[in-house]
């Protein structure tokens, strides 16, 4: 394929290989091969295959990228996939197509696991015809695809208007090989049946689904992680001190030392050390869930060690920080589905580690209000939200609504007036004041 274009296109080698490979599949192969399903795949399996390939080859998957000559190729691939799917997902059309390639339409169909993309395509393939001439390669699946047949067999007179009689409407779908009505243009005859042909190599590169985008907080998290790891590493002397045959600690950890002095169980000390080491390791890897769990065990082993407790709290904090985006998302979802108690629990996890953020505090207040059970706490968070963003009208409105719900009209009014000071035109504020009057 046009080598010159390779440089112009903004594609990775793998992507190019995928597109080129797929283009080759269009040139020869059955519709089943095109969609990479066995020919007894049931409708659902066909759909899954089509969806999977669409995700890879729909032009939108490359949105905003310069594809050079690959643009056209991609369009062609996607159209071919779609018309293959249209045929194979329609009972009658599929039956006709099957007959045309010598398959028994009444054979039992089965659900199939998706064919591994790296596995070579089976079965010999018949060439798919492309439209002749200088047309852009509009792929015509063998036999039935009605569009293709229409394209080749129907002639219509174009205006200027003349009382020329309009040709009969399109013939109903016909099995391949049926004779076409004679028309000035030579019709594209689909091949009568599959002709054996050397099988086409599948796209060489396996498509690997890319990992989800890293959360934008990744950077901060990594920094935090490293800081914590450093902190824990700095404590190393402490834990080493607990090791037998090591010199007494030179710094800090007096309490720990005496604790360990009281304990003669060296095995236990070693276990504690091992656990601490693994906490460090987990933190370094960013696995705060693991670290937090390990900390739990540590705390159970040495229940009154202040420094371990401190570390545990820090790990817990990091864990919550790491989970904050997920918790935020879950909290929003819970709010959307009106599970306010649940949402409040989630927001409070977020708020705990993001005390400076308006949203978690504000939303926590709002969810607590909606849940209605802990109005005092709701007010506390509404106030926090206000102190974070003293100019946000909605925070004052929230506080007012909480007071209103708690049966404190005077306080509610005061808060509402604060809101009105900030934005006297806000409808929500007007409504509120009207209600409180």
């Amino acid at each position: 394929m046009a080598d010159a274009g390779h440089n112009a296109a903004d594609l990775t080698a793998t992507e190019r290989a995928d597109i080129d490979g797929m283009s080759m599949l269009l040139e020869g192969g059955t519709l089943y091969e095109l969609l990479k399903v066995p020919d007894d795949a049931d409708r659902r399996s066909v759909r899954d295959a089509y969806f999977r390939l669409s995700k890879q080859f729909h032009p939108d998957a490359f949105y905003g990228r310069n594809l050079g000559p690959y643009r056209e190729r991609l369009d062609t691939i996607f159209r071919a996939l779609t018309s293959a799917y249209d045929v194979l997902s329609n009972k009658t059309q599929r039956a006709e197509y099957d007959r045309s390639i010598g398959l028994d339409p009444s054979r039992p169909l089965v659900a199939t696991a998706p064919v591994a993309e790296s596995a070579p395509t089976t079965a010999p393939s018949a060439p798919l015809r492309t439209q002749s001439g200088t047309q852009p390669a509009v792929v015509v699946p063998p036999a039935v695809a009605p569009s293709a047949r229409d394209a080749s067999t129907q002639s219509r007179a174009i205006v200027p208007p003349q009382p020329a009689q309009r040709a009969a409407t399109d013939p109903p779908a016909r099995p391949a090989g049926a004779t076409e009505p004679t028309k000035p243009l030579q019709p594209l005859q689909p091949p009568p049946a599959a002709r054996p042909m050397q099988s086409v190599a599948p796209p060489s590169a396996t498509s690997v689904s890319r990992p989800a985008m890293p959360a934008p907080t990744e950077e901060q998290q990594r920094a935090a992680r490293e800081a914590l790891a450093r902190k824990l590493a700095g404590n190393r002397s402490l834990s080493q001190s607990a090791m037998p045959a090591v010199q007494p600690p030179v710094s800090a950890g007096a309490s720990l030392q005496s604790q360990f002095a009281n304990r003669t169980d060296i095995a236990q000390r070693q276990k504690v050390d091992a656990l601490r080491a693994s906490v460090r390791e987990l933190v370094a890897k960013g696995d705060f869930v693991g670290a937090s769990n390990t900390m739990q065990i540590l705390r159970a082993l040495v229940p009154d060690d202040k420094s371990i407790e401190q570390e545990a709290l820090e790990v817990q904090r990091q864990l919550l920080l790491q989970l904050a985006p997920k918790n935020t998302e879950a909290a929003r979802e819970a709010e959307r589905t009106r599970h306010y108690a649940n949402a409040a629990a989630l927001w409070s996890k977020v708020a705990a580690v993001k005390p400076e953020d308006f949203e978690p505090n504000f939303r926590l207040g709002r969810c607590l209000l909606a849940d209605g059970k802990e109005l005092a706490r709701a007010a506390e968070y509404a106030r926090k939200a206000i102190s974070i963003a003293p100019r946000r009208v909605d925070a004052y409105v929230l506080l007012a609504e909480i007071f209103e719900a708690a049966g404190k009209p005077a306080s509610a009014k005061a808060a509402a007036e604060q809101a009105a000071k900030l934005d006297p035109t806000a409808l929500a504020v007007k409504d509120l004041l009207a209600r409180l009057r």
Partner: protein
Amino acid sequence: MEYVIGIDLGTTNSCVAVVQNGVPTVLPNRQGYKTTPSMIAMTETKKRLVGHLAKRQSITNAEYTVYAAKRLIGRKWNSEPIKQVLKSAAYKLVEGPHQDVRIELRDRSYAVPEISAMVLSEMKAIAEEYLGQEVHKAVITVPAYFNDNQRQATKDAGMIAGLEVIRIINEPTAAALAYGFGRRLDKQVAVYDLGGGTFDISVLEMSSDGVFKVISTAGDTFLGGEDWDTRIIDWLVDGFKAEHGVDLRADRMALQRLKDAAEKAKIELSSQRETEVNLPFIITSGRNEALHLQRVLTRAEFEQLTADLVQRTVDIMDQTLDDAGIGRDEIEDVVLVGGMTRVPSIERAVAQFFGREPSKGVHPDEVVALGAAIQGAALVEQGNKMILLDVTPHTLGVMVAGGMMEPLIPQNTTVPTARTRTFTTSRDNQTAVKILVMQGEHERGADNELLGEFILDGLRRAGAGAVEIDVTFEINADGIVSVRAKDLETGRDQSITVAATSGLTKDEIRSMVEEGKRFAVDRKAGEEFEAKRQEVEGLIHEVEKMFGPVEKVVGSSDFGRDALERARGVIDRARQAVSKKDVTLLKEQSDALSRTLRVFKGVVART
């Protein structure tokens, strides 16, 4: 990071959303509401009002308040829908220079995309305020039945508002995206969208790996909440006539109040079993006495008045499923969209039709904008998380001899797509053909929308039918239609990209963009300044308050006195910046004030 906002530009209300850190969020406007009325108004002093502000004054300034511009967008002056709107609109419509529609406001006449652009600018401003940065890109939704002209005009509106519209998507599709987002559903769902003026029904299939395929979509352009309102108005007017012998319809002001009251009553009946319509002094009688309108409407009565409207939506659903060859029982969930789906009889009818309760998980007013934002993010973010396989809502074809339309791309074909068909000349010695590109479902060409036309000439002189022309229609992923005709003998070809048919020329759009920009810049600077000014004044006040306490602590020291002096300087400069109306200066002073305040607080706290 560059955000793409999603805008649901509704007939009645508009809504804007964005995906932030992977989470789609609806953005509230300044009043704290998540939807903004799609209304604009021009006040006597030629001030532009948009949204709630426009709505609030709509009764007193009806003539210069434009609502439901979406009904006009992309339509020709002499089209049926425009004739309909002409009958009821309180604002003045005139014919534009390209058979398009213009709206007379106080200063000049506006093209419809300009009006929509005002709403879009507002949505853009809401987003910018929320995100704290400029926004340049948007995905805008349109009803599925919108034809190419209407879509193009909507894009133009976006452009005038200073937005690059990276994609126009269908409202029901957007709703389905939002419904399925992040839930890894593998389902076939129906989306029932009944808004203020339109009804849309779509069936989609979604897979757990994030592919959404539209199977079928249909609707009615002239069926929506307003029709329900009209039934109530009729009922009130008829009752009033029977009682007082006076026809309220003759009085514009009365009619406007009735409209308002009817909608209010309808909305109340969604949560109450009955509602009272009370319009004192609605009109004066022939004998010059003031007449009052006061009636109670029960939900049961309301349902009776509107039963046939509900049934119409059911019939359309039935037809749509039939056309798509899908059984009702194959629909695994039903998503309700649009304010009207809060009407109990509608929810009931849908539940009954599908034999299942509609999904409760989505917010009918927000779901469309959310879906648009999701699609926007999916397009610009690498990583291929989601793909939307949309369809073309209308049949595309060419006009053939005899005035018939010959379809090339049928309705509900997955895009991108391309189809080719061969045509012939219709007369002896015909050396040119005119390709008229049509869109619509009618057999008669003239009943469909004309998207564009071009001529292919230089054909060989020959008998009728002896020269063949291949016509290829192509729709790309952006929904842009292009058509090419090719003389098979000579290889000559001609093509058009159907794009510039929104009723505005490129030059006009360009000048509107310029004006829109000027407007946006004006307003933004003003807004920004105002916000900063408030902030700075608050800070000055706080700092001044602390002078006393701080002086107590550090006043005995030279350094302390110096510091206080400097703080006074900061305050002076801030005041100057305010009077100079200089935003940049103001920002600097605001920062300086914040630092001062922090220092002061620290000093006082330490004592």
